[in-house]
């Protein structure tokens, strides 16, 4: 009981603690190695700049843009990743034929595609959304595939013996038992979606936190640069923990959630 409660409280204690340690180490590093302000400003300077950045309403517009792009891209990746993953997981010959294309689409340097994106989708959000979706798609799709294939054969036979439709087998068995895999894929996916958005914002447009990174970079404003980076990390963390929270909500029955509490009594 109290063990479980203390476990729930733990992150609220440990995270600030680790943050403090982290900032202390950062400060120490900057001082001991006498790192140039330009390369890595000390935490104090950065925090000061962070306050400025955060109080600027424009920043929030940028953050909203980035968040919107990331979430949109992520959702596209989720839907298409699950759909494609399920189909490829169940139709091995299709997977065998399409895999080279899919892998190639992942390793192709996106920088070369940006002009095509711009031509097709303009300078607005669309190209970043697509970028985010492209990056997030792969881990979700692969994990769903693994999940669909790891469905317990015995449970599958139960469904078959009940003469279930494909859709029923999907919702009652495959979806449920693939959930843990989907969520692992989603946890990687949301992180990649943010990376995708940021890269997209680097390469074109003039909105979003990624653009802000480029701008502060160009202005050689190291403290503001690192402040923006902290903002981005916070945004990333937020989105990640939303996904993580969904996991706890949706698959309470899975070991990875209910944990090892029964294992030892």
């Amino acid at each position: 009981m109290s063990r479980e409660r203390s476990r729930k409280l733990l992150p609220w204690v440990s995270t600030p603690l680790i943050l403090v340690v982290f900032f202390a180490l950062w400060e120490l590093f900057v001082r001991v190695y006498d790192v140039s302000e330009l390369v890595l400003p000390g935490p104090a300077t950065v925090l000061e700049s962070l306050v400025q950045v955060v109080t600027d309403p424009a920043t929030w517009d940028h953050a909203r843009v980035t968040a919107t792009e990331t979430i949109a891209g992520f959702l596209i990746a989720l839907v298409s990743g699950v759909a494609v993953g399920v189909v490829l997981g169940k139709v091995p010959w299709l997977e065998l034929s399409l895999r080279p294309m899919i892998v190639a689409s992942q390793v192709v340097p996106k920088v070369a595609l940006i002009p095509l994106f711009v031509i097709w989708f303009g300078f607005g959000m669309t190209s970043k959304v697509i970028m985010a979706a492209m990056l997030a798609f792969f881990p979700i799709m692969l994990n769903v595939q693994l999940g669909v294939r790891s469905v317990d054969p015995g449970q599958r036979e139960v469904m078959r013996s009940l003469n279930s439709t494909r859709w029923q087998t999907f919702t009652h068995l495959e979806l449920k038992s693939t959930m843990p895999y989907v969520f692992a894929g989603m946890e990687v996916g949301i992180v990649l979606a943010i990376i995708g958005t940021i890269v997209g914002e680097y390469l074109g447009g003039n909105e979003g936190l990624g653009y802000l990174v480029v701008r502060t970079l160009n202005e050689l404003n190291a403290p503001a640069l690192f402040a923006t980076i902290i903002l981005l990390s916070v945004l990333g963390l937020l989105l990640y923990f939303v996904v993580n929270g969904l996991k706890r909500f949706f698959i309470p029955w899975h070991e990875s959630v209910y944990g090892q509490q029964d294992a030892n009594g």
Partner: protein
Amino acid sequence: MAADSAEMVERTAGARQAGPPEGASGPAKLELIGIGKEFHTKRAHTQALSGIDLTIRDGEFVSVIGRSGCGKTTLLRMLAGLLSPSTGQILIEGRSLWNGARVDTSVVSQLGVVFQEANLFPWYSVAENIALPLRLRGDGKAERLARAYELAELVGLGGFERSYPRELSGGMRQRVAIARALSIRPKLLLMDEPFGALDALTRERMNLELQRIALATAATVVFITHDITEAVFLGDRVVHLTPRPGRIRQVKAIEFDRPRGIDVQTEPGFGAIVRDLRHALDEDEGR
């Protein structure tokens, strides 16, 4: 050869037996014609079953016994449309279940299967597991739950309806699986050692319940068990499979009237049949 003599026994026995009460020697529900099954792995080919011929009438209760590994589960999975036979044909109500390796799902309707493992869904509670077949068929929620609670009570799990599978003991899980198979009042019930994990008393009660349900719904039942007494007690006929490859050695008609009470086991004829079957099984040893 073994199959021939088996068929013979089957026919003569079939004519005389007390059989299912409704429809007496009704039409053939299941026909197995020359069924064989080979498994291929990298190392070896296992001939699990060979030359199985058997006709099961509508409403009949057939027990299957045989040594561990003789192919009982394999046979049942083929009947359930889960595994295609390597040779031969399975007819359900005269229609072929298998077209090569493809199953014709329209043929296997109102089917209830209890597997050797419980195969529950960990994300559903006991009641939801029991009600799953009803849900798939589209029954309403209230109706479903009422039936699930009723069945939970029947298998002795009253009070555990909202528990999750991982909170149950092995025997309790198996009972949930039984309740699940019964939920749709199947016309064809395939059971693979359903009572293996149960204590004698629960088992006895389940035996009686199963008999009652089978009679009431006029279901055809194929029932695999290791307990010869159980096989004889429940079966209209008892099929004895011999191992490697699995063949029908004998089909024994059990001619006690149904429904049978527990005391039928004390009748002299009953003990004799059990003893005979046990001796026959013992002879499989050398093979």
